[in-house]
Every structure is written in structure tokens, then in C-alpha cells.
């Protein structure tokens, strides 16, 4: 009956009952919107089964991105005039907590599936063949900025130390307790650099002194700063943000 009344009065909006029905429908709609609101916040994401599916999808997306990754495809490079000034500082802590690493006592530690695990001093690293790039750093938050980094091709370094290039992962441990890892295919990409300079100057502490891995084919958080140790492994090493739910591959 009600539905029929509704039909009939559609042609005539002045009929009083339509307002009553409209109001009731509106209330009903409001209630379902409220139910939807319950979906938001942590409530649903905290549900174990939902989280299992979401984590599974994130692993699936790792696979899709590894498949999409073209080892010969280069990230766009930009002219000096395109560099973002000032280049933003970003870390899991504030700018007042930036770690200072002592240059004189610094030694890069190597471990895992590497033939020559002799630690490297800064002068030794600076003596490696240097190159530079001006690329876009894209943050997982959405913003992006263009910067210029200089250093050695990571593939050159990995070959030099006799790393097992058939291994799955390269992991990094940093002076600020940050840690992350990347896939070997990305590690060997020609634009993946072990950098010691920003804008032609020795990396200032806020950009990761003494060295930062620059990976223009991945999101910003996959570019570790203040690297103290690195290792090659076939065991998934995870990462600081990755272990909290951010996608591991995070390619771009």
C-alpha cells in the first residue's frame, strides 16, 4: 500500500504523505550510513580475518609489481632547474632527532651471501666510480620532490664485493634503527645508487650521512639513509614500515 501511495504521489509533490515517507527513507538511509561508518577507523581492519585477506592481497601485489618491474626501464630524469628547494626532510622521527654518524670511525658492515665481507671505510667508498642522477622521490604519503644524488651504482658495488646476485633480497640496517630490504632485480637496476652526495655536496645528516641508497623505481621509504650494514639473503627481511603493514615491494 505504501509503495503504491508513493508511486501515485510522485507526480504530485504537494501530497503530504510523500514527505512522511521521504523522511522515513531518509532516516533508514542515515542508519545504513551509520553502519557504514563502523567500517571506518581501525574497527574492521583490526579484525583478524579481514587483516589476513588484506595482508594476502599486499603479498599478491608484491608479486604483481615484481612482474611489472622492467630492469631496463629508467625513471625519468630532470634538469637541475626542476630540483625541489628545499628538498623535504622525512623520517619516522622529527628533524630534531637526526642521528650524527662519525665519519672517521665509520665502517660499512657486510654479511650474508657475500664473498668478500671486509668492512668499507668512507675514503674507500668515495674512491669507487661515481655517477649522479636527478630523479623524483615519491613518498608513500603522496607528495613528491625532485633531488640530485651522487654515488656509485649499487650493481657495481654488489659485483665488487662478490654478492650472490641470484639471491632474493638485499637488506639494510641504519644508524637511526631504521631497516628495510629490496629485491635483487631492483638492487641491480642501473639507476639504483649507493649515494654519498646530495646536490653535489657530501650528504648532510638530514639527508642520511654518510650514505643513502637511492632507488628511483621505489617509494621513498625504500631508500634507507645512514646505512651502517647491509646483507644479502634469501630469507625475507621485512622492514621498519613494511612490518607495520606498508607494502613491501612498493615499486613506482
Amino acid at each position: 500500500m505504501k509503495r503504491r501511495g508513493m508511486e501515485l504521489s510522485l507526480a504530485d509533490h504537494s501530497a503530504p504523505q510523500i514527505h512522511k515517507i521521504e523522511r522515513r527513507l531518509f532516516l533508514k538511509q542515515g542508519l545504513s550510513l551509520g553502519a557504514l561508518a563502523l567500517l571506518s577507523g581501525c574497527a574492521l581492519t583490526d579484525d583478524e580475518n579481514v587483516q589476513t585477506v588484506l595482508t594476502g592481497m599486499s603479498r599478491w601485489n608484491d608479486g604483481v609489481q615484481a612482474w611489472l618491474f622492467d630492469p631496463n626501464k629508467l625513471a625519468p630524469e630532470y634538469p637541475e632547474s626542476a630540483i625541489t628547494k628545499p628538498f623535504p626532510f622525512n623520517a619516522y622521527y622529527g628533524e630534531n632527532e637526526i642521528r650524527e654518524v662519525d665519519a672517521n670511525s665509520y665502517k660499512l658492515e657486510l654479511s650474508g651471501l657475500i664473498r668478500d665481507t671486509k668492512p668499507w671505510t668512507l675514503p674507500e667508498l668515495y674512491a669507487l666510480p661515481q655517477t649522479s642522477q636527478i630523479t623524483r622521490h615519491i613518498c608513500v604519503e603522496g607528495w613528491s620532490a625532485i633531488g640530485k644524488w651522487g654515488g656509485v651504482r649499487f650493481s657495481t658495488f654488489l659485483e665488487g664485493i662478490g654478492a650472490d646476485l641470484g639471491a632474493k633480497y638485499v637488506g639494510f640496517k641504519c644508524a637511526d634503527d631504521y631497516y628495510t630490504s629490496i629485491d635483487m632485480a631492483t638492487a641491480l637496476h642501473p639507476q639504483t645508487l649507493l649515494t654519498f652526495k646530495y646536490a653535489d655536496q657530501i650528504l648532510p645528516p638530514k639527508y642520511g650521512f654518510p650514505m643513502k641508497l637511492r632507488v628511483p623505481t621505489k617509494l621513498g621509504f625504500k631508500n634507507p639513509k645512514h646505512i651502517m650494514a647491509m646483507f644479502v639473503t634469501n630469507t625475507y627481511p621485512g622492514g621498519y614500515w613494511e612490518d607495520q603493514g606498508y607494502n613491501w615491494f612498493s615499486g613506482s
Partner: protein
Amino acid sequence: MEAIRQDRTEWVKIHPLVVRITHWINAFAILVMVASGWRIYNASPLFDFKIPNELTLGGWLAGALQWHFAAMWLLAASGLVYLVYGIVSGHFRRKFFPIAPRAVLHDVLDALRGKLAHEDLSVYNAAQRAAYLAVIVALIVLVLSGLAIWQPVQLQELAALMDGYEGARLVHFFAMAFMVLIVLVHILMVILVPRAFPTMISGRARRKS
């Protein structure tokens, strides 16, 4: 009176099963993508406003990204089935065309005055045709700009069509805003013409003979 009306009413099939199933899967996927997308937007707003967190999904950026990049597969799969079905079966051609700009304008004005006729739910009026086609186009733009934001290096040729990564973000935002606007109008119209609602579930509508 009641009995006579009953006699004159016949049930006609207006929404094919594929359309109904994909409609609801798409609706769910779009709801998840928009709500999680708003949370992602909030992590680095393009403009001078944020979306209230109560309207977003995911709890924090990582959670929102997980929802967004999970639901995208659902939308891609369901959307593709809908598109292929719509084109191959002739559903789009029958339901959305012909579409004349003058008729669209006429029906939109009628709708604004509350005078738009919905007597026969099996035939879309010009305003509906335009709105549904616009949502389809907006979704295609959303998927393409989304892919460009997700993989701006691997899919850099696609990103370049939108002036690169930052351009793709803008395209993604405005396509979202446009789609949300049309969906809101769509929901409002369903509230005003509530008998349209069950037809997207049962597929059938009553038509006076």
C-alpha cells in the same frame, strides 16, 4: 479498484543478472576505494582541506593503502566483466543510446524541478543515460590515473598523458570528485523513486499494461 490495478500490472525483466551482480560488486568496491582513498588523500592533501577521518576507511595510511590496493582488483575484475558484457551483448547500445545533448539538458532540468518521469523503469531517460555513461567514463579515468600514480615509472607513458605523477594525482582527485557527485545524485534519485531500488536486486519491474 485494488484488484483491477493488480490485473493491469505485469512484471518485466529490466536488469540482466550480469548487470545486477556487477552493479553491487562495483558499488561495494567503489565505496571501499573512495573511503580508503580519502584516508590516503589525508596523508598529503592536494588542497587546503582534509576529509573527516570518520568518513574514511583503514584507520591509518598503511591500512587505507591495503584496502585501496585490495579493492582495486575487485573493481578491475567486476568492472571489466560489466564493460565486456555491456559492449558485447549490446546492453550499452540498447540502454544508453541514442543520447542527444538537447534531451539530456531537457531531462536534467526536469529532474531539477522534480518533474522527471520514471513511469517506465525499463527505459533510461536522457539524464540517466548521461549520468551512467559519465560514471563509466569517470571510472575508466580513475583506473588509468590510479595506475599512473601506483607505478609512475613502469607505466610512465601512461603517466606522461597526465603530465606525469603529480598531474595523475590531480586527474585522480577530480575524477573521484566527479564520480562521487554523480553517485550521490544517483542515490538521491533512488530515494525519490524508491521502486527503482528492488529492480537492481530482482531485475524485474512492474509495468502498467
